[in-house]
């Protein structure tokens, strides 16, 4: 009975001491982690978020941006191309050399590959119709070679001077490796780790022998 009480007292004393130490050592932790000089900074500035700062200077979101009148008029007008230029862009010519266009009958039957509707960049009917001498799609976006390989325009090539959207946006590689890559690296390390002692053991054995 008496022994248990002493133990409890001891425990209580230790707990109290630990609490005291925790409270007393708090400034040490703050000064070592906070650097000391930042302690006097006001908290108001940290409260303001960076995005809020940028939003405050913004004229706001655009509600409906319309293409400028002058440009639309120019875009609608048929363009007069320079005669020296080839009727098809170089990339399209290359594609035609590599994959010769199928006969005209095949084009009618096989529907051309169209971009998924989610991208919403170019309107497929407008692309295929390709108003004679009119303005090309000119869609800026993740490039899809429309009308390059499978479906040559009916008018004999796209209008001169207008390049189709062919360039793709370069894929952004992540700094973090894929889980598979990471696992392969770990596996490699494990193999090296397991091979090293084995080799050493074998060398020792051969030396003894």
């Amino acid at each position, binding site marked *: 009975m008496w022994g248990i009480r002493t133990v409890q007292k001891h425990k209580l004393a230790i707990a109290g001491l*630990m609490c005291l130490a925790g409270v007393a050592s708090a400034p040490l932790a703050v000064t070592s982690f906070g650097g000391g000089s930042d302690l006097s900074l006001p908290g108001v500035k940290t409260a303001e978020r960076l995005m809020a700062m940028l939003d*405050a200077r*913004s004229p706001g*979101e655009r509600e409906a941006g319309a293409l400028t009148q002058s440009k639309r008029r120019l875009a609608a007008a048929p*363009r007069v191309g320079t005669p020296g230029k080839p009727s098809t862009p170089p990339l399209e010519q290359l594609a035609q050399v590599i994959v010769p266009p199928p006969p005209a009958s095949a084009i009618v039957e096989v529907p051309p590959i169209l971009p998924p509707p989610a991208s919403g960049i170019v309107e497929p009917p407008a692309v295929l119709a390709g108003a004679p001498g009119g303005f090309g799609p000119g869609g800026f976006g993740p490039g899809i070679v429309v009308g390059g390989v499978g479906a040559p325009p009916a008018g004999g090539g796209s209008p001169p001077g*207008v390049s189709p959207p062919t360039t793709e946006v370069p894929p952004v590689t992540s700094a973090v490796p894929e889980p598979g890559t990471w696992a392969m690296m770990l596996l490699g390390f494990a193999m090296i780790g397991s091979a090293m002692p084995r080799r050493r053991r074998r060398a020792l054995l051969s030396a003894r022998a």
Partner: protein
Amino acid sequence: MKWLALTLVAVAAGGLFAAQLGDSRPRPGDSTETVTTAKAFVPQDTAARVYLTPEQQREASADGGFRETPRSLLRVDRRMQYGDFEWNDEGVPAGPVTIRVDLRTQLLSVFRGGHEIGTAVALYGADRKETPLGNFPILWKGRNHRSSLYDAPMPYTLRLTGDGVAIHGSNVRWGAATHGCVGVPTDFARRLFEATRTGDMVSIVRTTS
């Protein structure tokens, strides 16, 4: 048990000592010397520049669109109007130049070594001619470029994609949109043209509010 108690006491004593040290440390402004050392650690905001706190820098890296951690922003204490821009690279050392375009806020910001040196209200692509999102290096620069596609002057062009998306000077006004390019005030475009080199990275993002 004894050793535990001794360790706790030692930690507590250390904490108390640190607290003492923290109290006795002179506050900034007590003497010129302390002010200069404080400046070395925490840059003080100036009339033209707001230095970001670590929290704001972390927010920037999390939000995306910042190719490198921003360190300071220009002080723009107003809502910018269409055609407005700010440019101030005083005291900003040489460094890698990055451009960030946010389509939601319609703002373009230029950073040199993490310090913002310019910002402007930008135009972007109309709904049918969307500006692509992503990271693009500047492919080509043209001071007096004239678009062959639209037969329109595009002064101080910084081309971003092979299909013609670029940052260029234009008449930035309410209700206007581009064919996918990013339009900035021509005076701003001139400064941008001089501050950038081919290969500098441009991030086009659409942040969420």
